[in-house]
């Protein structure tokens, strides 16, 4: 066998079982998580800040920062200088790590301190939607404050059913991540996101229907590929795939669709409810999904442009 082919084969095989991403995930799920269960939350946050500074170093996250800078440049075209883009990419990493640290400490943060850390904008929009008695589908992207916002709203008396993927949807997930780390990760998230259904479960549609009929809230992260209907939409100077099945649910149940934005971390965070989306009615399902999804993607694009460092999928 050609030596180069052999080296490539060994590299691919090893990567399939053991990647740098696996090491970082393992580090987070075991030693960092163990430390977070015994250290005071303030210390864990400080530890998180320290880790984010280390991880943001170009030497450690060179590839990640490069891809972030490319995405940010594409999103802002010529509106930001190279230095500003560099700074933003560093902030993206800090915010992502803050969000991961929150996952470790959220179950330990008491209700009172959480209530003083968060604020809601557009609560009247949620109230108006709830007054329709048809249930509300809260649509958002993967923003930094999502999980803290859900805990906050639950504590305020607005429990939200989260729709989640059981397995990682990104294509780079290798054998170790799919079969071991993702399960450990989900066990951690099961505690943080107490109220959830998995898209892989057979009856998840019924759980959504039940919650909407009780005039409850259902959260959909439509920038994750967890849907049978996926539509490509113009987004941030390029195109991106978005899940559209939540619009099928809205059409069937007449539930209100409300874009939601959650930014920040458990120290300071903001939840913003936009006005209910007026869905265009079309007989043809494909047209209905395409037109309305584009409308919602535009709102999300404006969220990302306003808070680029808080979108975890940048």
């Amino acid at each position, binding site marked *: 066998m050609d030596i180069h082919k052999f080296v490539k084969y060994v590299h691919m095989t090893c990567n399939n079982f053991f990647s740098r991403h696996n090491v970082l995930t393992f580090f987070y799920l075991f030693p960092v998580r163990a430390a977070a269960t015994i250290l005071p939350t303030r210390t864990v946050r400080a530890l998180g800040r320290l880790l984010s500074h280390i991880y943001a170093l170009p030497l450690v996250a060179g590839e990640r920062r490069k891809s972030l800078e490319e995405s940010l440049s594409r999103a802002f075209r010529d509106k930001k200088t190279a230095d500003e883009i560099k700074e933003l990419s560093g902030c993206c990493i800090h915010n992502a790590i803050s969000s991961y640290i929150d996952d470790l400490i959220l179950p330990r943060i008491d209700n009172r301190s959480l209530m003083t850390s968060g604020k809601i904008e557009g609560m009247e929009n949620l109230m108006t939607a709830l007054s329709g008695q048809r249930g509300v589908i809260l649509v958002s992207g993967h923003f930094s404050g999502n999980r803290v916002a859900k805990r906050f709203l639950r504590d305020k008396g607005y429990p939200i059913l989260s729709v989640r993927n059981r397995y990682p949807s990104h294509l780079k997930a290798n054998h170790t991540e799919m079969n071991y780390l993702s399960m450990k990760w989900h066990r951690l998230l099961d505690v943080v996101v107490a109220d959830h259904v998995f*898209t*892989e*479960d*057979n*009856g*998840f*549609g*019924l759980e*959504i*229907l*039940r919650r909407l*009929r*009780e005039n409850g809230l259902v959260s959909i992260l439509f920038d994750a590929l967890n849907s*049978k209907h996926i539509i490509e939409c113009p987004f941030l100077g390029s195109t991106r795939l978005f899940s559209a*099945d939540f619009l*099928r*649910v809205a059409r*069937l*149940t007449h539930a209100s669709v409300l874009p939601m934005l959650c930014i920040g971390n458990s120290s300071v965070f903001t939840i913003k409810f936009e006005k209910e989306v007026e869905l265009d009615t079309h007989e043809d399902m494909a047209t209905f999904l395409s037109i309305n999804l584009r409308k919602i993607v535009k709102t999300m694009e404006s969220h990302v442009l306003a808070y680029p460092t808080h979108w975890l999928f940048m």
Partner: protein
Amino acid sequence: MTTETTIRDRIRKVLAHKLELHIENAAFIEIGRLDEIFGMDSIAVIEFVIGLEQEFGITIPSENLDIEILKDVKKLEAYLRRELNDKVI
């Protein structure tokens, strides 16, 4: 009078109209489990539930929105028969 056969026919009608699943009666009995024809598309289950409610003029209460009832033809027939009887009474 509502018999199991007619209930079954009406379930088939919902599947045909709402989900565009045209299943012959013989095949329908053989399938038994509806989740085998839904596949992984759980949104189709919502469509099916709403279709059943429209067809039979009932509202399936939250506690009965159970995949175990909906995926089993016999259980579903029995459930709908009970609901229809209660409605008549």
